[in-house]
Each structure stands twice: as structure tokens, then as C-alpha cells.
């Protein structure tokens, strides 16, 4: 194993840099379709960075990141549905469901600024509230994981059931423009790609700084010995709440960007299974490693795209096996190979 590692390690160490170089060159190399795919996966990478912070460094396993991803995605999608409408009309799917008027909570989304703010702040606030409600009563991490999974199920079911207000099972699709730019034009697509790459790099640098700071240190301390942190005079609760809110915000940003690239947001992207898939990105990349999370998000999404288009059933077996093998044999993921930690 060591001989293999010695051969793999240098290659893996340059991988993130090679990826960055490739990402910068991508708009000049890739076809429109492939660039769009890459941009979607990068949006997933933004979300995965947040999971590294809460799960790897905070010991908080969230099985509900899909909820925050969905909130970001739906916020942007609702704005785009409204932006393309002639005055006084309501979106097509509402008409088909027999609605006469726009639901009141749709109305502010006509403003792009509101929609973008909502895509970031609604997940952050909901995440903060949720994390606080559980952690301030000192309820443990396993319970938190179970509750977030229940949240993912409840949220997805709720979205599906409100057909006339959310588009139900099909979600929201058929967008034409964002801020006046045509969604279909290659120039808009390239612009959105650069935006996604910039946000991904910004989130990476920002979290790197944050996790190296005192905040990161306390987060890890709370993960390893919550009571000892209390004895030292800190309350671990605010650190965990802020971390979870930030991760929720990154998930919201990821969801918003993903929706812009994919041109659709639907319950199939936000429920129980997608939420736990988001954890596997990070488990494969390495739960403590920000670079690993991006690599993992790209690798898993690429693999899924390749496998599930040809053999849809195979992908579920593969993902199940990945969970079992990575968690038992490579708890530090790909990043663990780079650092030469078997365990």
C-alpha cells in the first residue's frame, strides 16, 4: 500500500492546482454542454465546502443540506418565473393548477435583489434557527443527523404536495432570462460559469482562512471535547450555530447557481437521497479537506453522470458500496492519500 501511495501522492497533490488551471481554461476548451455540466458540478462543490466545515471540523453530520440547496434554487427559480411574465399574469403551471392569483409569498421575488438575498439569507436563518434549537439543549450529533434527515423528507414532501404554488413534482423550469440576459445565449452561460468559479474560489479561500482562525480552532475543540470547551469558559453553541448557518448559506448559493445552469429546480434534487449524496462528495474527497471536497464533488458527479446515463441501477449499488468502503477503509478520503494517512 505504501509503495502505491508514494506513487499516487505527488500526483494527487498537484491535482487541485491542475483542476484550477483546467477550470480557468475550460470556457475556451469545452463545448457549451460540457461547460454547463462542469458549472453545475462546481455549484455542488460550493455546497460541499460547507459540509467540510460542519462535518469534518465541527463534527456535525447534516443529512439535510438538500433543503438549503433547494431553498436557494427555488428562490432564484421563482424570480425567473416572474421576470419573464407580462404584467398581471401568473406563471403557466399555476394557471394549469387552477390558481387565479399569485400566492402572497411569491410577490417579493419579482425583485432580483430580493431573490438573491433570499437565496442566501433564508437558508442561513433557517439553518441558524434549526441548529440553535437542537444544540442549545445539548442534544447530540446523532440525534441532529436524524432530525436533519426528517427535515429533508418533510421539505421535499411539502414542495411536492403544493403543486399550485411550487410546481409540485416537476419543479420549476422553462426560464428565459436573468437580469435581462437571455439564459440560452452562450455569452450568458460563460458569464455564469465565471461567476460560479469566482464564488467557488472565494468560498474556498474564505473557509480556509476561517478554519485556520480561532473560530476554526474552537469548532474543532467542540467536536473533540464539547464539555472541555465549556470548562475552558467557551460556549460551543454559537460556534456550531454560526458554522451551520454558513454551511446552509453556501448550500443556498450552490443551489441558486445550480438552478441557473441546469434551468430547472425540482424535488428530485433536494430530498433525502440527494442530501445524503452531498455527504458522499465530502466523504470521498476527505472530510477535513476543502480541496478534497471540490475534487470529490466533481468526481462523484462525473461518475454519476457517466454511470447512470448508461446503467441507472448500477449507480445506486455503486453509491452504496462507496459509502461502505470509503467510510470503513478511507475515513480521510482522497485527501488522506495525499497526506499519507491510512487512518
Amino acid at each position, binding site marked *: 500500500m505504501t509503495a502505491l501511495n508514494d506513487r499516487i501522492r505527488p500526483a494527487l497533490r498537484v491535482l487541485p492546482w491542475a483542476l484550477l488551471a483546467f477550470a480557468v481554461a475550460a470556457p475556451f476548451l469545452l463545448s457549451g454542454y460540457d461547460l454547463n455540466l462542469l458549472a453545475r458540478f462546481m455549484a455542488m462543490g460550493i455546497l460541499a465546502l460547507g459540509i467540510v466545515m460542519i462535518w469534518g471540523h465541527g463534527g456535525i453530520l447534516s443529512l439535510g443540506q438538500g433543503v438549503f440547496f433547494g431553498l436557494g434554487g427555488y428562490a432564484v427559480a421563482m424570480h425567473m418565473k416572474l421576470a419573464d411574465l407580462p404584467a398581471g399574469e401568473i406563471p403557466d403551471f399555476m394557471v394549469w393548477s387552477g390558481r387565479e392569483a399569485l400566492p402572497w409569498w411569491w410577490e417579493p421575488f419579482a425583485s432580483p435583489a430580493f431573490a438573491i438575498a433570499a437565496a442566501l439569507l433564508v437558508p442561513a436563518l433557517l439553518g441558524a434557527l434549526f441548529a440553535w434549537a437542537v444544540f442549545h439543549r445539548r*442534544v447530540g450529533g*446523532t440525534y441532529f443527523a*436524524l*432530525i436533519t434527515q426528517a427535515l429533508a*423528507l418533510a421539505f421535499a*414532501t411539502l414542495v411536492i404536495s403544493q403543486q399550485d404554488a411550487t410546481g409540485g413534482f416537476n419543479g420549476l423550469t422553462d426560464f428565459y432570462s436573468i437580469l435581462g440576459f437571455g439564459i440560452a445565449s452562450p455569452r450568458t452561460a460563460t458569464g455564469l460559469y465565471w461567476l460560479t468559479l469566482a464564488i467557488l474560489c472565494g468560498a474556498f479561500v474564505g473557509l480556509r482562512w476561517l478554519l485556520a482562525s480561532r473560530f476554526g480552532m474552537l469548532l474543532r475543540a467542540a467536536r473533540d471535547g464539547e464539555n472541555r470547551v465549556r470548562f475552558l469558559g467557551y460556549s460551543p453553541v454559537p460556534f456550531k450555530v454560526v458554522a451551520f448557518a454558513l454551511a446552509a448559506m453556501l448550500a443556498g448559493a450552490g443551489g441558486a447557481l445550480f438552478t441557473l445552469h441546469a434551468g430547472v429546480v425540482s424535488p428530485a434534487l433536494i430530498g433525502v437521497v440527494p442530501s*445524503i449524496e452531498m455527504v458522499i462528495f465530502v466523504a470521498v474527497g476527505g472530510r477535513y479537506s476543502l480541496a478534497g471536497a471540490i475534487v470529490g464533488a466533481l468526481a462523484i458527479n462525473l461518475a454519476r453522470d457517466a454511470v447512470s446515463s448508461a446503467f441507472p*441501477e448500477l449507480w*445506486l449499488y455503486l453509491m452504496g458500496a462507496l459509502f461502505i468502503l470509503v467510510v470503513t477503509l478511507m475515513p480521510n478520503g482522497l485527501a488522506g492519500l495525499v497526506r499519507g494517512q491510512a487512518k
Partner: protein
Amino acid sequence: MDLFLNQLFNGVSLASLYLLASLGLALSFGLMRVINMAHGEMLMLGGYLAWATLSVVPGPAGILVAIPVAFAGAAAMGGVIQVGLVRRLSARPLDTLLATWGVSLILQQAARDLFGAVGVEVRAPAWLDGGLTLGGIVLPSTRLFIIAVAIVVLAALTLVLLKTRIGLLVRAVNQDRMMASATGIDVGRVDLTVFCLGSGIAGAAGVMLALLGPVTPSVGQAYIIPAFLVVVMGGLGSVTGTTVAAAVLGVFAALAQMFVDVSVSQMLLLIFVVLFIQIRPQGVVAARTRQLDA
């Protein structure tokens, strides 16, 4: 009023299912602090075993044969999961959760490949047709049977825990694992026994699900998340706490469905549990311990 009583009865039968689905989770969690995410697939396995048994053993007694068969099958599967995965990861509870989720995915897909995604139908025996009519409310026999099975399972489990030697060992490990190990108790075997027992109970619950509707690869998923909430609310490894939590959540869900649709009631159930842990974070029945990091 009749509608209310009807829903109350439905709530009790739903609570019985929640209880059967969550007892194993709660016992294993109390003992090992791990959650088996493939527990829902034990229900599914029990459902398919019921279907298989009834195709071999026709006649009125088929369903009574199916319960022990499903129990044994699911217990064996639980044993495999415990020895293969859970035991190796015992020091990392959250990783156990993720690894067993992988098992859950594989089992669901395997069921899809073997039996198809549509599901198989189990015909309830004739003696479960009809029901009792009390005043204005109808109590279907199937649901009465489910409640009866839950009561029998609960009584049997309580007797095992309180009156048998293995129950004594389980309670010892539950109270203080290190000390129990030091007195020569084979802790690993106790873990395995409890895991198999819990999985077996879930298997028996799967037979009940088969009576209510088609058995599909994802049949366990509908009951497993409420079961998780029962575990969160119940308190560490307490049979009493789990029973109370299952009763409260089952009745709550059924009554909520009188006023809102099913999807909203799911959200209400979750909010209810989160509010409940604001008041009692240690659960319905608190585990008494003086350990700081229990």
C-alpha cells in the same frame, strides 16, 4: 366526534407500527450509540418474507407463520450488518450511520432487481376481513391485529429484559459498558444479540406493513423517519420512553391529518419533536447516569 374517535384509533394503530419499527433502533442506540440506517430495509425484508411465506403456506395460519419467519430472516440480516460493519465502526457513531446508509441503498436496489419496483401484494387472510363496529366507529380487524401484535411484542421484550439472563446482561451493558466488560460479560455478544433482536422486531413489523398495502423496495422508508423521531424523543434505550414517544407521535400524526394534508402533518411532526426536545432534551425517560459524556 365519531370522526375524532376513528382518527384516534388510527393513531393508535399507527403508533403500534412506529413502535415496532423503532424498538430495535432505540435498543441498539441505547446500547451502542449507533443508528442503523438500514433498519427500514429490515421492515422491507420482513414484508417480502411475509409474501414468500404466504405463497408457500396458504390458508388462515399463513400470516402467523410469516411473523416468526420474517423475524428470523431480518434478525439474520441484522446480524450480518452488525458483524460486518457496525462492530468495526463502533468508535465512530456518525460513520456507522453513513456506512449503514450504503447498506440501505444496496438492499433497496437489490429488492428492485429481484421483485421489481412495483411491489408485491399480500392477501390478508379471511379472518382479518371485516372489523368491529362500536357505536359509530369501525375498527378494521387488520389494525386491531397490528395493535395486538405490538402489545405482544412489547410484553415479550419486557419479559426478556427483566426476567431472563440475557436480559440481565443487556441491562448491565446498558448501564455501564466498561464495568460489565470487566465482570466478564461478553459485551460483543450482547451487542450482537440486541442488534439481531431489534432487526427481528422490525422484520415482524414488515409483516404488518404487508397487510396494509403492497410491499415495495422503499416500503420501509415511509416508516423509518418517524421511527427516528421516536428514538430522538424517547430517551436513551428506554423501552418505556420509546413506547410513550411512539404513542404520542402516532396519535399526533393521525389527529393532525384531520386538519391538514399528509405532507404538512409530516412537517408538524418534526416541529413537534424539535419543540419537545426544547423542554426535555434527555427524552421522555431520562437515562440516569453520573457520567459526563454518557
